[in-house]
């Protein structure tokens, strides 16, 4: 199928739009700023005026954060967020891509540069003058949450050990957040999987291309995701072997977004990878529902606020992490029902969008503060950074709780 035919497939979903406005009721950005008129307005309505080869009609689509909630709530199956992502790509081509968007969308490159000089890089990135300068020169908001380089790479840890052999194998897709910023999350994922009898294979891997895609750099995003798909697929030896990841937005990229938004649905490797990819909590809950998850949990007498990030919601499987956390004795789990934290990957760190992102997240931040929980559990790393920044609370992946409840001990520091 040609690129054009694939685009037409997505665009064809427009015919199902009955203008019911349900997407408008759920859009967190439209509720926070008049600069974005809402998904129906920017999507199905404006799309009629977007003609191939002609200039983009509507610049407001740049304010869409790409959270995907509109597509999730649409009762007619219209691919609203995906259509808007393509409109954003077109707008970017027309306007030109700012230097900032070429830099912050390359976590692999940033990680490789920052990791060897982590203490210096972390210090520099937290100095006020650096941040003021970065805002002026690059348009990265000076107050936005930026991650800390861990100074070590998860893949080095994984390469230095071998997972106990088992008939049940999983290919681990750790993503860039685990690789450069939170290697301990990966160590916990491996420990939990091994505790449940899996042999964990960790292939060499780079970025899935999601940041590039969400900033409208589609050609580079395609290269990145196909390269990753090939690296992961090479280890899918048996029919039963699956891929599991803990970065929920990156697993969603592999499962669906790259295929739909980047018009790669016909790539056979990506299709195989999409079918075999699981989010870690999805896998663990499925194991539990068929009686195969170890539940030797010790009690954790504390309170945790759980926020399901938009990209996790985009898996369209509800909130598996919530059910997993509820298995832990004495853990008081408070479900946050606000939709979005406002970061949407790199959206909320951009100078012109930081304030909007913080307003989007306000409802969640208030709920967290009212919950009495000292810690927030959330499946996406950029959301955790934003939540920690805005609420001054620790934010961790839900698997942290499972890891502790299993009594799996302290990972390498």
């Amino acid at each position, binding site marked *: 199928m040609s690129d054009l035919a694939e685009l037409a497939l997505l665009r064809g979903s427009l015919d199902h739009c009955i203008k*019911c*406005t*349900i997407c*408008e*009721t*759920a859009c967190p950005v439209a*509720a926070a700023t*008049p600069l974005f*008129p809402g998904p129906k307005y920017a999507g199905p309505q404006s799309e009629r005026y977007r003609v191939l080869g002609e200039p983009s009609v509507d610049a407001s689509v740049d304010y869409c954060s790409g959270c995907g909630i509109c*597509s*999730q*709530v*649409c*009762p*007619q*199956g219209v691919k609203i967020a995906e259509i808007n992502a393509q409109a954003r790509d077109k707008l970017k081509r027309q306007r030109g891509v700012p230097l900032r968007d070429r830099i912050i969308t390359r976590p692999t490159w940033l990680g490789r540069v920052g990791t060897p000089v982590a203490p210096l890089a972390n210090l520099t990135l937290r100095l006020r003058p650096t941040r003021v300068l970065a805002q002026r020169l690059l348009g990265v908001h000076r107050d936005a949450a930026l991650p800390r380089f861990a100074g070590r790479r998860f893949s080095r840890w994984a390469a230095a050990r071998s997972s106990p052999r088992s008939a049940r194998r999983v290919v681990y897709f750790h993503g860039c957040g685990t690789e450069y910023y939170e290697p301990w999350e990966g160590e916990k994922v491996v420990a939990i999987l091994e505790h449940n009898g899996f042999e964990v294979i960790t292939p060499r891997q780079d970025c899935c291309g999601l940041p590039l895609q969400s900033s409208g750099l589609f050609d580079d995003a395609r290269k990145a995701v196909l390269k990753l798909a090939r690296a992961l697929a090479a280890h899918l030896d048996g029919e*039963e072997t*699956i891929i599991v990841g803990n970065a929920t937005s990156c697993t*969603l990229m*592999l*499962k*669906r977004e790259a295929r739909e938004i980047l018009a790669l649905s016909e790539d056979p490797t990506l299709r195989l990878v*999409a*079918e*075999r*990819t699981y989010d870690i909590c999805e896998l663990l*809950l*499925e194991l539990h*529902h*068929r009686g195969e998850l170890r539940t030797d949990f010790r009690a954790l007498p504390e309170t945790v606020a759980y926020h399901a990030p938009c990209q996790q*919601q*985009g*898996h*369209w*499987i*509800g*909130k598996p992490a919530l*059910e997993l956390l509820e298995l832990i004795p004495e853990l008081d789990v408070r*479900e946050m*029902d606000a939709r979005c934290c406002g970061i949407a990957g790199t959206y909320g760190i951009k100078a012109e969008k930081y304030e909007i992102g913080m307003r989007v997240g306000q409802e969640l931040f208030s709920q967290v503060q009212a919950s009495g929980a000292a810690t927030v559990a959330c499946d996406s790393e950029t959301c955790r950074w934003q939540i920690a920044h805005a609420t001054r609370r620790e934010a961790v992946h839900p698997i942290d709780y499972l890891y502790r409840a299993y009594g799996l001990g302290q990972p390498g520091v």
Partner: protein
Amino acid sequence: MSRGFRYDAVVIGAGSAGLVAATRLAQAGASVAVLAKGVGCTHLAAGTVDVLGYAPELVSRPLEAVAALTHENPQHPYARIGQQRIGEALRWLQATLDAGPLAPYTYVGDADHNGLHPTALGALRPSALVPSTMAAGERTQLERVCIVGTPALRDFHPSLCAANLSRAGVQARAVSVELELERADMSTLGIARRLEEPRWRAEFCARLTPLLRSEERVGLPAMLGLREPHTVHADLEHRLGRRVFEIPSLPPSVAGMRLYESLRAALRAAGGRLMLGAEVVSHTREDGRLSAVQTGAAGHAASYSADAFVLASGGFASGAIELDSHWATHERVLGLALDGVPAPGEPRFLPDYQAAQPLASVGVAVDAQLRALGASNVYVAGASLPGAVPWREASGEGIAVASGFAVAQTITGGRERHG
């Protein structure tokens, strides 16, 4: 690797029928998952609960009229639900709102009486239950009324509403208030969000007050807040010094969104799960029972098995029942048999648009327990049911709430979790 999740009960559809059924099931101690392609009818409906408005003449005592209707039409959903359960379901809904996140915002009225409430066009529509923010618009209380709109709200025309109310014998006039909005056009939802800001609300009242005459009630489109409707409504009545009421308007329905949020909170409090974006794309049947349904999740289908299923996916309007280009009708979610389909040669459509269109009463064929014929553990609720013409009867929400309530009761055998 075999895949799948397991629950005691799976409900398909997140409209009012599905959410009521799921909440009741969860309250009875069942593990419940609601699978829905998207958000349902609540956001598009008026947000009132109309049990029976026309039979075919205007109905003032709905439950009495239900008795006559079901005697005449034993295929009607109410005939299988029973009068008593309609009343129980409505009282349960009121209690749910009373205990919910929007309280003291609630539903007022009962299944024995209809009130007449203005529509956006200024017609008077019979409803059994209305949101407390609409109560002051009931016809018997209306003598003089000022209908208020704003130019930015292009879906509500106060002068049209007032003119039609005047024809119905209400002394009605219209005013339009200019508001400081960042956009040239705005929906009731956008204004509802603004009205939750106290300063903005004060400004709105300051602009409206000089336009009002003494002894006038104020009617506004349903936009008095989403999260705190009671506070917004009470503050407006206080500042304007008079009774204020909401009028249902075009989608997005703010009053309907409040119902959705209230039911969603009740479902969550009872431990039920809601999966949005989870369209049922295939199913597994064994020996006349449904064993599992599969949804079109990202990457690969997700499978959900359960002992009992509730089909509350809606009728033609939602697309769950379709008439294809070969003039054949299908139930698209589970491929169940339909009832009420006009026989070959019989008319499917009548020339008068407003007539009781034959196709309108098509629904999934069910037994006296609302179980789907041919699938003994599938129960049917809401607009999926056959035998009613909801828009002529003004019975849609009543059927949805009562049938959702009834099927949950049948599945759990009336069990309720205590403690």
